C-alpha cells in the first residue's frame, strides 16, 4: 500500500460522501414511499433515469441546467402523481407483492419508451460551465461539480426537513411514516397524502438522476444498476426511516470509497456484504420498525 497518505484517505472520504449523496436522494424517496404507502417501488430507478432524460430534452430545447433543477422534478413528479393515481391506487390493501410487481412492469415500460424516443445509445451530458474544473479542498483537488452535488443534496434535505417539521402536512407524513394507521385515525384524506408522497418521492428521484447525469452521461439503463444499491441503502437505514436513509446513504458511499482504496474490485460486493452484516445483527436496519411487513 505504498502512497497511502492521509491526503489520499481524505480525498477518498470526500469521494465517498459525494457518491453517497446520490444514494441518499434515491433512498429518501424509496423510504418515504415505503413508509407511507408500503409500496416497494421498483420503478424508482426508472424515474431517476427519466429525470436525466427530461433534463437532456430541456437542455436541447433551450433550457439551462439551473432551470432543469427546478423543472425536472416538477415534470417527473407530475408523472409520478399520475402513476400513483391511475396504477398504484387500485392496489392498496392487497399486500406488498402487487405494487412491487406493478412497478417492476412499469420500469420495463418506462425504460423501453425512453429507448424508443431517444434511442438505445446514450448521450453525453455536459457539466454546467461554472461547475467545471477542480478545486483545492485541502487534501487535494476535487471536482467542483461533485462538491455541488453534496451541496444540492444538503439543500434538498434541509428543505425536506423544514417541510416535515414546520408544515402541518409534514406532520401528517411524519406521523404516517411511523404508523400508517394513525393518519387514518386523524381523519386526514389519506389518498391525497399518499398521492403527494409518491409524487414527492419520484420528484426527488428525478432530481437525483439529473444530478448524476453530468457525472456519468445518460443512458436508458442507468436506473437499473443504481436501484439495487439504493435498495440496499434504504434497507440498511431501515425502511420508512428518513434519518436512516441519510446515514446509510453516506455510510454506503464511504464504505465503497474505502473498499476502493484497499480492494477496489470488491467495491460492489462490499455493499451487499455490508447489508448482510447489518441485517444479521439488526434485522430491521438502523432505524426501521421491527417486524414490519412480516
Amino acid at each position, binding site marked *: 500500500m505504498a*502512497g497511502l*497518505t492521509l491526503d*489520499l484517505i481524505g*480525498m*477518498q472520504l470526500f*469521494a*465517498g460522501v*459525494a*457518491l453517497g449523496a446520490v444514494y441518499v436522494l434515491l433512498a429518501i424517496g424509496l423510504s418515504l414511499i415505503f413508509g407511507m404507502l408500503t409500496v416497494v417501488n421498483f420503478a424508482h430507478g426508472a424515474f431517476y433515469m427519466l429525470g436525466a432524460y427530461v433534463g437532456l430534452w430541456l437542455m436541447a430545447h433551450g433550457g439551462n441546467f439551473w432551470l432543469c433543477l427546478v423543472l425536472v422534478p416538477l415534470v417527473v413528479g407530475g408523472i409520478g402523481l399520475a402513476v400513483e393515481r391511475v396504477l398504484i391506487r387500485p392496489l392498496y390493501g392487497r399486500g406488498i407483492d402487487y405494487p412491487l410487481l406493478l412497478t417492476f412492469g412499469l420500469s420495463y415500460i418506462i425504460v423501453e419508451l425512453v*429507448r*424508443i*424516443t*431517444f*434511442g*438505445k*445509445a*446514450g*448521450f*453525453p451530458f*455536459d*457539466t454546467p460551465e461554472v461547475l*467545471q*474544473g*477542480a478545486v483545492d479542498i485541502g487534501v*487535494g*483537488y476535487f*471536482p467542483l*461539480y*461533485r462538491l455541488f452535488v453534496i451541496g444540492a443534496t444538503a439543500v434538498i434535505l434541509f428543505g425536506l426537513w423544514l417541510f416535515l417539521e414546520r408544515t402541518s402536512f409534514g406532520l401528517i407524513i411524519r406521523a404516517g411514516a411511523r404508523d400508517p394507521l394513525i393518519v387514518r385515525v386523524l381523519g386526514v384524506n389519506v389518498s391525497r397524502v399518499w398521492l403527494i408522497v409518491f409524487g414527492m418521492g419520484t420528484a426527488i428521484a428525478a432530481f437525483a438522476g439529473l444530478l448524476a447525469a453530468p*457525472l*456519468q*452521461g445518460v*443512458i436508458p*439503463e*442507468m436506473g437499473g*444498476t*443504481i436501484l439495487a444499491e439504493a435498495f440496499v441503502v434504504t434497507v440498511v437505514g431501515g425502511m420508512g426511516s428518513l434519518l436512516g436513509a441519510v446515514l446509510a446513504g453516506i455510510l454506503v458511499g464511504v464504505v*465503497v*470509497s474505502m473498499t*476502493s*482504496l484497499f480492494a*477496489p*474490485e*470488491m*467495491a*460492489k*460486493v462490499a455493499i451487499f456484504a455490508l447489508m448482510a452484516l447489518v441485517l444479521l445483527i439488526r434485522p430491521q436496519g438502523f432505524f426501521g420498525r421491527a417486524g414490519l411487513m412480516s
Partner: protein
Amino acid sequence: MTSKTSKSTTLNRRSLIAGGAALAAAPFSFHTARAQEATIKIGFPVPLTGPYGAEAQDQVRAAEVAIAEFNAGGGLGGRKAELLVRDDKLNPGEAATRALELIENDKANFIVGSLSAAVQLAINNVTKQRGVIFNSISQSDAINEVADFSKYTFHEALTPHMTAGAVGRYAFSKFGKKVAFLTADYAYGHEMVRGFQEAGKGMGVEVLGDIRHPIGATDFSTLLPRLQSMKPDILVINNFGRDQQIALKQATDFGLKKTTKIVVPIMLFTGRQAAGLAAFDGVIGGTSYYWGVEDQLPSAKSFNDQFRKMHGGRVPSDYGAMGYAGVRTVLQAVKNAGTAETDKVITALEALKYDYYKGPQYFRKCDHQSVQSVMIIECKTKDMRNEADVFQVVASEAPNEANLRSCEALGHKA
C-alpha cells in the same frame, strides 16, 4: 428480401430489427420463413437489447450489406443467402438458447455474431458440439485457446492481445514509460493488461499499479485519486463500452488529463458519440476499423458506399463493420467451395485471403484467428467533415502473425 432496410434516426429507432422482410411482414411466423431448401441461412445472434444495442443494430446493418452483395452477385449458383437475426440480450444463456434454436429449428448453416466474450464462448460451445461453423465478431483471447477452440470456430474480430499490443507499442514509444492501469475485473480486462504488458517488455516500461474495478461500475471517483497519486505518464483504461465512457468522463473531471496521457485499448465509435468529445478528447485508442480510412483504402471506400446506400447515408461503426466481414468471409468461402457443406467451407475459409474493408486479412491455420491490421485513433477536435467524422487514424499496425499470441501459447500443437 434483404433489401429491407432499418431506417433509423437518432431520436426514433422504432424500427423492426428483424433482418429479413419475411420476419417483418409476418411477425408470428417465428419459425422464420420456411424458405426453400436452397437458401443458405446465416444465424446472427447479437445483443439488440442491452447496453450494446446500438452496436448490435449496426452489426445487423453491416451483415445485411454482405448478404445483399452475395445475393446480387447471384448467390451460390442461384442459391440465395438469408440472415436470421436473433436477440441474444447480451446473456450467454439466452445466446446459447438462440444458437440451439438457429441450429435445431431453423437449420441455420452457419452462425456469425455475438458481442461479448462470455456470449461468444457460450455460442461456440453449442456450435462446436454440433459441428456448425461459428464466426465470432467480438473480442476474446479465450476463444483461440485450445480448450474452447474447435475446427468449427473462426474469429473474425481482433483479440485483446492484438489490440492492446498495437496500442501499447504506439503509446509507450510516444508518451512515456511509467504506466498505470485501471482495469475492469473480468477476463477481457485481464487479457488487455496482459497484452499491454507483453508489448511493454523490452521497452523499459514500468507498471506503477493496476487498479481493478467491478464490471458495470458507474462511478470511478473513488479510484481516481489513487491513480492520480501514482503520477503515471500513461493511464491505460482497460474496460469497455459504458464503463469506459464513464471512466473517461470522470477522469476528465478529476483533471487527470492535465498530467497524464490516457489510453484505451478499444475506442468505440458509438461510445464517442454517446459520451461526447469532452470525455474522449486527447485519448488514444485502438480500433479494428474507422470509416475515415476510405480516403486511403479502396476496399473501405467500397464497403462504406454500399453501407451508405443501403442505410440512408449513415456510416458503419467499428463493431458494425465486423458484422460485414464476418458474414462475407463465410459466404465467400461458400462460393469458393462451391457448396455450403461444413468441412469444405472450413477448408475454403482457411485458404481465404481477403481484403473486404480494412486491408488484407487471412485466418491463421492453428486457431482460425483473422490476422489483420490494428488502427490507432484519436479524437478529432477540428476540421470535422460531418457528425460522424469523430476520429483520425494516427497509425496503423500492419497484419503480422508475430503480434498474435503464438500457437504454442494457446495450447495448439504447432
